[in-house]
């Protein structure tokens, strides 16, 4: 497998508070890697630094072997990193229809066959009938699918998901989880998934990274994590 994203000794502080303390991480394409941790542990900050929405104070980030951020500088802006991002609150633009939300990235890149691409991805997610609606007219689950469609329409090689299921009920969560799993095969993407829910992490992931207080405390496959000797991990996963 190719190494998609690599973080070397990444540090990040807000004011005097260190949020990330020397994170080393390699993420591969074609897999679901989950960053698991408690609230405030720094997991969202890792996603934002990979996306280029924040710069690391120290350390570096590479994508496909190319240095994209280092030492407080963003060398490659977010839109040139070929990433998709699903935000926790989805961030669908309320003034645009579903069609416009999905087509936005294609339009600003002046791509050809925009309508066809939008309709194809809308078909895949089963939202073709909602293309003329505004986000406010959709249910939570439908909004989730629109966010996924918007994130994937540009064919990113990696998609970042920041607790995207947190606002859904159990039934919808299960349904969308299946959709997310299917994305790996259909779109050949890698997924970095952030959550505080270890059950969700175990169900979805090929690889899990546990983070606590800005540091990685454990990493491995779900079965490896179940065998972890780390006290925090054992407590967090309720394996005691």
């Amino acid at each position: 497998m190719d190494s998609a994203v690599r973080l070397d000794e990444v540090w990040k502080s807000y004011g005097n508070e260190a949020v990330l303390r020397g994170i080393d991480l390699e993420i591969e394409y074609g897999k679901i890697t989950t960053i698991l941790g408690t609230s405030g542990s720094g997991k969202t900050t890792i996603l934002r630094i990979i996306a280029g929405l924040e710069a690391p104070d120290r350390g570096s980030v590479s994508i496909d072997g190319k240095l994209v951020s280092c030492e407080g500088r963003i060398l490659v802006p977010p839109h040139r990193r070929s990433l998709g991002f699903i935000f926790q609150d989805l961030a669908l633009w309320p003034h645009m229809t579903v069609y416009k939300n999905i087509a936005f990235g294609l339009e600003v890149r002046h791509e050809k066959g925009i309508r066809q691409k939008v309709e194809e991805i809308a078909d895949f997610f089963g939202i073709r009938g909602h293309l003329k609606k505004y986000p406010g007219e959709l249910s939570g689950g439908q909004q989730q699918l629109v966010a996924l469609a918007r994130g994937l329409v540009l064919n990113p090689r990696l998609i970042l998901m920041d607790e995207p299921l947190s606002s859904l009920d159990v039934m919808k969560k299960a349904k969308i989880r299946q959709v997310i799993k299917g994305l790996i095969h259909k779109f050949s993407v890698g997924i970095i998934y952030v959550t505080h829910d270890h059950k969700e992490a175990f169900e979805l992931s090929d690889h899990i990274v546990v983070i606590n207080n800005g540091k990685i405390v454990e990493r491995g496959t779900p079965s490896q994590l179940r065998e972890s000797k780390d006290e925090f991990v054992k407590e967090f996963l309720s394996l005691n």
Partner: protein
Amino acid sequence: MKRFIYFLTTLLFLFIAVVPTLFTLFSSVIQLRGWGGIFSITNLTLLGKSIAMSSVTAFLSTLIGLLLALILERTFGERKNWIKLLLIAPFFFSPYILGVAWSDFFHMLGTGEKFIYSPWGVIFVWTMIFAPLSMLVISSQLANIGPNMEESALLCAPYRSVIMKITIPLLRPAILSSFVLVFIMTISEFSVPAFLSVRVFSTEIFTQFSAFHNFSEAVAQGWIIISVAITLLFLERSYLTDAPFISVKTDASTGARPIISRPISKIFHGIAYGSIFWMSAIPVLVLVFQAFKGGLGTIDQAIYVLAPTVINSLFYAAIGALFLVLFGLIFAFMSEEDHLRWVNLVLLVTFSIPSMIFGMSLIYFFNRPFLTPIYSSAIIIIFAYIGRFTFITGRLIANSLKQLPAPLKEAAIMVGAPPWTILFRIIIPHIAPGVFAAFLIAFILNLGELGTTIMVYPPGTSLMPIKVYTIMANAPQSTTSAMTLVVLVVILSSTGLLFLMRSILTRYSEERCCG
């Protein structure tokens, strides 16, 4: 009890602000007085000129306001509140103060005098006054746009595309509101065109009333301005009645920071600092220079002339601000806690009544024998303040109330706290910054109010702005500048004193609370 307070407050406000205006306007229609020449070529030309000047000002102010709001909210960090405070300073100087300052500036330059004494000069001064208001309106909306809205677009588009296709369309309500507010405020503003000798519709109304004592025609002309203002207002009412533009935020949201290089970021910061220098510092520096050019004697003379008015002005401004906060607080509760939406609409409509029309209405309604105690005393000045600015204090306090998380109140209800305890122990402490801001802004606006008070002030009750305005037409330039500078110093020092008192009180209450 609550219903009784609501009823009494509404009744009082109707008596002070709404009934006099409606009575005056409808008397003019019913008696058909002053309507003969209302649609004359002269009037229509002046109206067209006023609409054109206000439209251009509203456009320019909104454009500058948008640019400054984007720079402030998207490129500055924690310093943005200080920068914002310095940028909005001109909005709190009375228009006539800036009129004097900018005309002085062009005098000093030795060029551009023809420009400043022309409609374009008035547009320029108005833009300098109202661009900060536009910035305030737009930046409040901008701060409320979640950062993810822009960040999700940044992943597929460069920042300029995000600004043009995501940020600005999301700001559309605020942009339109800024345009409408500036238009309404400038079409009834008369002190700047009057000082710069530019004849517009508002100066015509003032002239009809004060020079020709033609009350009927002035009111009939007022109808036209009010019709234009209210038509525009109703187009934008859904946003304006809930306008967050004058809110004191306890937790300002942070939008997406642009991914821009350091040199470009420095250029944007340079624009912001340059705007502060141009819009806020130059007028003050010019007034200082011009005032001292006449020697210390001119300053002495200005202080001597204005001294008797300072105490009056401060006293009435403070009393007026207290009443404005009281009315604002009760109306805010009516609209936010009891969802009486008509309250905001009534306040908004009264706010759109031009100041001199409101002044004429107060005269027409209260100048009767059995209302003499009100008409011939300083009470009429307080009424003028209440009618003009309750919308501002009401919105400020309502926006603070909106930010109060519902569970805070509900938790108090669950432990059985009675309503008054919840009000004084839970709600008021949380909205205190908003209430203080409402008092401060009302105080400053009262100190500079000219349009209504110049019409209604009773004999022997002289106020600073009126004194300056009546003297400046015949006074030497340096005397006018010196007087204006004195007014500015009084406004700034009393505001500073209020801030000082607030910080002392806050420290005292913290010490008492936490030992």
